[in-house]
């Protein structure tokens, strides 16, 4: 059986090593936080200047001075730290984050990432911190459906959308399979309800 979004988020969370410093991108990756356990001791980084970010704030907890990268009100955990933007991105670019989890339009078998711009002529380009995260973290996980809504593969030989980073993705977590990508190409780590041959046929790739 293919994985639901929630099962996929749990699968990613289970792969994050205890004590890791982790940045979860906007959108689907945010759900990974719900599956991290206290015993894992994972510290969440948010690009707008905080380590030790807690869950979303509700009611009286809401403080306009405390938001996540998606500008939603959040909470702080014991041991939290605040810092300015140049420091926050030095943490990324300097290779200090253990893991970041991002969404994607496309990932290539060598780990190129396209997740910021569809390239459509009327689209307003907006990159945010995507390029900094992509090239900075020690491990870059992508969470996405393996196929687009129209059935075209999102894991591809070469990205056709404008790139976010070259050779930066280490592992793809999808509804149908977990797949490692990199200089050696794509290799299936685990498949959900399909075998490698069926995956290869869906993706037009040799896996």
């Amino acid at each position, binding site marked *: 059986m293919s994985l639901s979004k929630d099962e996929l988020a749990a699968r990613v969370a289970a792969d994050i090593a205890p004590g890791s410093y982790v940045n979860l991108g906007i959108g689907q990756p945010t759900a990974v936080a719900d599956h991290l356990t206290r015993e894992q001791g994972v510290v969440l980084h948010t690009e707008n200047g905080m380590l030790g970010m807690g869950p979303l704030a509700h009611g009286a907890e809401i403080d306009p001075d405390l938001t996540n990268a998606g500008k939603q009100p959040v909470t702080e955990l014991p041991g939290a730290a*605040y810092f300015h*933007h140049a420091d926050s*991105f030095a943490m990324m670019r300097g290779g200090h984050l253990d893991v970041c989890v991002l969404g994607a339009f496309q990932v290539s078998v060598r780990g190129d990432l396209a997740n910021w711009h569809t390239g459509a002529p009327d689209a307003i380009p907006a*990159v945010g911190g995507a390029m900094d995260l992509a090239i900075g973290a020690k491990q870059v996980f992508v969470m996405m459906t393996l196929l687009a809504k129209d059935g075209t593969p999102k894991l591809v030989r070469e990205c056709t959308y404008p790139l976010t980073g070259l050779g930066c993705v280490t592992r793809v977590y999808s509804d149908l399979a977990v797949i490692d990508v990199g200089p050696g190409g794509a290799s299936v780590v685990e498949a959900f309800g399909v075998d490698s041959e069926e995956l290869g046929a869906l993706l037009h790739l040799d896996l």
Partner: protein
Amino acid sequence: MSAVLCDDVDEAVAGIQDGSTVLVSGFGMAGMPVDLIDALIRQGARDLTVVSNNAGNGDTGLAALLAEGRVRKVICSFPRQSDSWVFDRLYREGRVELEVVPQGTLAERMRAAGAGIGAFYCPTGVGTPLAEGKETREIDGRTYVLELPLAGDVALIGAHRADRIGNLVYRRTARNFGPVMATAATTVVVQVREVVEVGALDPEAVVTPSIYVDRVVVA
């Protein structure tokens, strides 16, 4: 010179020239100096280049300045948001220029300007459309893009608390771009919630030292 404590926000933004580059702190509305921007709208400077992470939210602050047609160009990392309808409309009508910069590169370019760095090699954006036309260099087997400093004529900053000579502390994630922008502009104007006497801020806790700050106003 130590900072001048202004009586009101209109005094704080006096003298901003047409054609200025204005650095505006904030990440969404957190740390956004809304009262200073409202004063800048009244002050009347036009043909501005605005450097900020976003290009305005809703109809207030930066969005209101844009709606008044006072901004020629926006340099930011993330203009498109669910509530950026003012910028979206002006951009689609060709009435505002846009330079998109990766968020960390935006911060580091201002840090470089404030720190006297002439340019820096940055790994972000290599091989992407945002590096097109830029000089690249391989250092120890990794490719970098040359990025230039980004300075402002004016910085408008929202902080939490100042003392009377301009030492600043911020609050939680509202700190964001404030400390970097405070180093990178000729005239630095800060709105705070409270001004305290000299000596009342813990020197170990000061985030922006007073040397960077020119004008302070409570708003």
